């Protein structure tokens, strides 16, 4: 027997709430929700290039999809959470208190799944509130039924929890905080986009986290825009349930990697 699961969860919770990380998380969640609200206020029809308005199904989709594009933020928070153990070398004491290393990592994964869900919920509620608020303000009706909007927002919130897990896994794997943050940031900002430009590899896009997220949120703006610019056909996204399945697979792989990676490593 080693430290009790409840004790490990309590410790991770204390660790999360006793630094400002949770505050940054909250601000990022509020910010990404508010960002969608601001875009709604500006109106997709005023974007460059102009997009269908908020009162069309596609216009509402685009704004929800843009919220889906902020999933890298909770991933970064998850990465910071684990890699800071290595950066500040608290990993030694943590491992001394829970020598079966998978136990503290499992506790981290559990706590950060909760944190990721909370993040997603805040971002989705703020974004949803802003969308409906703007619609009222502009005297229009959203282009999608309320139920559909709510369902898409819920999917985005879940996606954010999955991404938090992915971030935790990357942090556990790479350890070096800067490397891990750069890897996560570069992946979501650059690598997936670049992959979409390569004709052969493009077919993989639906199975990459970004592609699966797009399928889940019904957001194809990025893929379509790139296809339009390069004159190639856009990659076909998976169906929403298949996209969800792909994301869950990534989360499971991430958990397996995160739990297995530190087991045999020497902690110096």
């Amino acid at each position, binding site marked *: 027997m080693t*430290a009790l699961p409840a004790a490990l969860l309590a*410790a991770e919770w204390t660790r999360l709430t006793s*630094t400002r990380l949770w505050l940054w998380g909250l601000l990022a969640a509020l910010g990404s929700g508010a960002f969608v609200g601001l875009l709604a206020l500006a109106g997709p029809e005023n974007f460059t290039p102009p997009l269908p308005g908020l009162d069309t199904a596609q216009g509402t989709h685009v704004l929800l999809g843009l919220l889906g594009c902020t999933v890298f933020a909770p991933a970064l928070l998850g990465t910071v959470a684990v890699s800071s153990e290595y950066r*500040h070398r*608290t990993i*030694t004491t943590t*491992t001394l208190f829970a020598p079966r290393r998978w136990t503290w990592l499992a506790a981290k994964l559990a706590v950060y799944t909760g944190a990721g869900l909370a993040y997603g919920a805040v971002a989705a509620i703020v974004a949803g509130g802003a969308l409906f608020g703007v619609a009222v303000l502009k005297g229009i009706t959203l282009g999608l039924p309320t139920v559909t909007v709510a369902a898409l927002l819920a999917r985005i919130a879940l996606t954010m929890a999955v991404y938090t897990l992915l971030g935790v896994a990357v942090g556990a794997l790479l350890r070096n905080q800067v490397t891990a943050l750069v890897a996560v940031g570069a992946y979501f900002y650059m690598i997936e986009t670049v992959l979409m430009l390569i004709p052969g590899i493009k077919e993989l896009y639906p199975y990459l986290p970004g592609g699966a997220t797009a399928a889940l949120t019904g957001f194809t703006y990025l893929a379509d825009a790139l296809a339009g610019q390069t004159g190639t056909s856009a990659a076909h996204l998976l169906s929403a349930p298949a996209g969800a399945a792909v994301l869950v697979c990534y989360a499971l792989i991430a958990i397996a990697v995160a739990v297995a990676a530190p087991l045999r490593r020497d*902690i*110096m």
Partner: protein
Amino acid sequence: MNIEVRGLTKAFGPITAVTDLSFEVEAGSVTGFLGPNGAGKSTTMRMMLGLVAPASGTATFGGDRYADLPHPSATVGAVLDSAGFHPAHTARDHLRVYARMGGYGTARVNQVADLTGVSAFAGRTTRILSTGMRQRLSLATALLGDPQVLLLDEPSNGLDPEGIAWLRYFLRELAADGRTILISSHVLGKIEHMADHVVVIRDGRLVTTGPVTGLYGSATVLVRCAQADRFAAELMESGVQVERPRPDLLRIHGLSTAQVATAAASHGVTLREITREQPTLEQVFLHLTGGSR
């Protein structure tokens, strides 16, 4: 609780850190773990605590490997110099996190904070703590589970004389409670007054293990006196080995300070100064290895 180390071996790439190292630490004793820098002391302690996986060999506490202990942090406490703190945590936050982890209450946090003097700076973030404060916080963390065994890796490194005096006193108190303490150092003088036993390693191999008094071989006493000529002659006549580094200075082998003082009194020699000569760890190594290195 006995500590038993059997055949520990570890290499980092082509560099062998520890080779077939075995020793025992008796329950309730204070044992010094001595060796020059790079001898493999830290690696050995890390292997004992399951932080570093040995290529071969085992280390057990009362028969169990550290990771198999029913309640590790309540059995063994460790102060390792590599252990850090989250810079945004206050000292109390740090203790709270690990108290939660070990299942200890807030009362225990306050207790160890009082015991180690952490209370005086519990509200400060660890970023701004001095080396001495960090060392106290490490010690407080190690004591959260009130462990019977303490492993300390060079705990006085970076401490000022006041900090060292405090640490020495504090560890003596802990030892008086019957705790088993293994304390590493590369400076013999820092632990010789505290340790009952020593384990000496060099280049990752055991040099010797035994009572601390056996380390020095024959003790030497330095004496400054007016009648150095006569005293040296008298001593040598009774078979004592005497050197005379300076005209008024004698280095006497094989006698304690008390024996030298008694001899001086009985020969009517007035001593101006009498000192037991402190061997350095290097001299001890030379003695132990017969000067072969």
